[in-house]
């Protein structure tokens, strides 16, 4: 497979069926940067004057986000929350520290660290047991709180997270399956600082799939933690992502249409409620051949039959 963008047919490193494209290393990096720039512009996420705090975990998404923002010339520091999950936290902390020291420091960016055990007296696993709450929910609450607190206290203009297209599509699927309408309102890639004490939050990777971001990390030699968080085993989000990936494999572009379609509908002002009967009366006319209701002059059935008769002659 060759790059569909290069005039000299360079060997592609990744095929992107949803875009009907394949890219070499250089064109793929350009593609990723363009997608992030488009998300930042269309959802009014960031300006080059903003001081940004990136929430990093040592995984591919957050490290790639930090890398992309620095490469695009943004002023981005990062915060890592050490959750105290044994060797998993030690390894992820090491990866973040390595990136901060070897790459981010060269851009003048710094890494902030919050250690849950130091403040709460216990790691996330023990806290979840004490609180009788699921570990992922306890983790989410602590991370959201600490990232927001650091952004506010250290006067960052905006907080950026590495949520990608798959994260958002899976979350949307979960919210729709359970009709969690209140959560749907909070699925925008840009959440304003709605009240005093809340930092503005943005998701610049929302146009990129999880696979595209992992590929970006590999071609840029970003050393991220491949191992899955041991606490996430059996999570509903993973199940939703697996289901969406099966659909994507059969019908490329499904995840994008699902999530972007939702955002498009969300962006439009509420249309006045119109009943199905009202809509039908406004849009349907009698077929000029058979008289049954149709949106066009001749209904699809009559067109089909006319074509069939012509072919049979």
């Amino acid at each position, binding site marked *: 497979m060759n790059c569909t963008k290069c005039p000299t047919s360079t060997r592609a490193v990744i095929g992107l069926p949803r875009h009907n494209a394949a890219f070499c290393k250089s064109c793929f990096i350009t593609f990723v940067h363009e997608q992030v720039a488009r998300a930042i512009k269309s959802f009014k996420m960031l300006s080059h004057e903003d001081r940004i705090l990136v929430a990093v975990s040592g*995984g591919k998404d957050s490290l790639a986000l930090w890398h992309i923002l620095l490469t695009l010339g943004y002023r981005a520091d990062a915060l890592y929350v050490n959750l105290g999950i044994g060797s998993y936290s030690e390894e992820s902390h090491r990866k973040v520290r390595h990136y901060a020291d070897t790459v981010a420091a060269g851009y003048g960016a710094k890494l902030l660290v919050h250690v849950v055990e130091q403040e709460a007296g216990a790691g996330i696993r023990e806290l979840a047991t004490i609180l009788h709450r699921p570990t992922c929910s306890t983790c989410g609450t602590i991370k959201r709180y600490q990232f927001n607190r650091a952004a506010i206290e250290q006067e960052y203009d905006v907080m950026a997270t590495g949520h990608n297209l798959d994260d958002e599509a899976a979350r949307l699927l979960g919210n729709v399956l359970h009709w969690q309408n209140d959560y749907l309102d909070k699925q925008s890639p840009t959440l304003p600082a709605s009240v005093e004490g809340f930092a503005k939050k943005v998701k610049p990777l929302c146009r990129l799939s999880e696979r595209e971001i992992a590929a970006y990390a590999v071609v840029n030699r970003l050393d991220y933690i491949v*191992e899955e968080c041991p606490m996430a085993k059996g999570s509903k989000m993973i199940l939703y992502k697996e289901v969406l*990936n099966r659909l994507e494999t059969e019908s490329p572009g499904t995840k994008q249409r699902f999530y972007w379609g939702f955002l498009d509908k969300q962006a439009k002002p509420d249309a006045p409620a119109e009943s199905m009967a009202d809509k039908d009366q406004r849009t349907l006319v009698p077929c000029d051949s058979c008289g049954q209701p149709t949106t066009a002059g001749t209904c699809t059935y009559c067109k089909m039959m006319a074509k069939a008769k012509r072919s049979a002659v």
Partner: protein
Amino acid sequence: MLVQLSHPNRQVEIKGPKRTKDLLRELNLVMEAHLVIRGDELVTEDEILADADQIEIRPVISGGI
């Protein structure tokens, strides 16, 4: 070819030559959820992998939100 897999970490020996997409199919894995890396370079699904190749199939799904 020696194929490195994750979750759980393990290695399997697969007979080549074989296209990337056929290797994934044989292991019952979908391309959308994985990257295939030969040595340290990404390969596309139509690439032919040889017996001598060292292959890593890296999952891309993460569960944390």
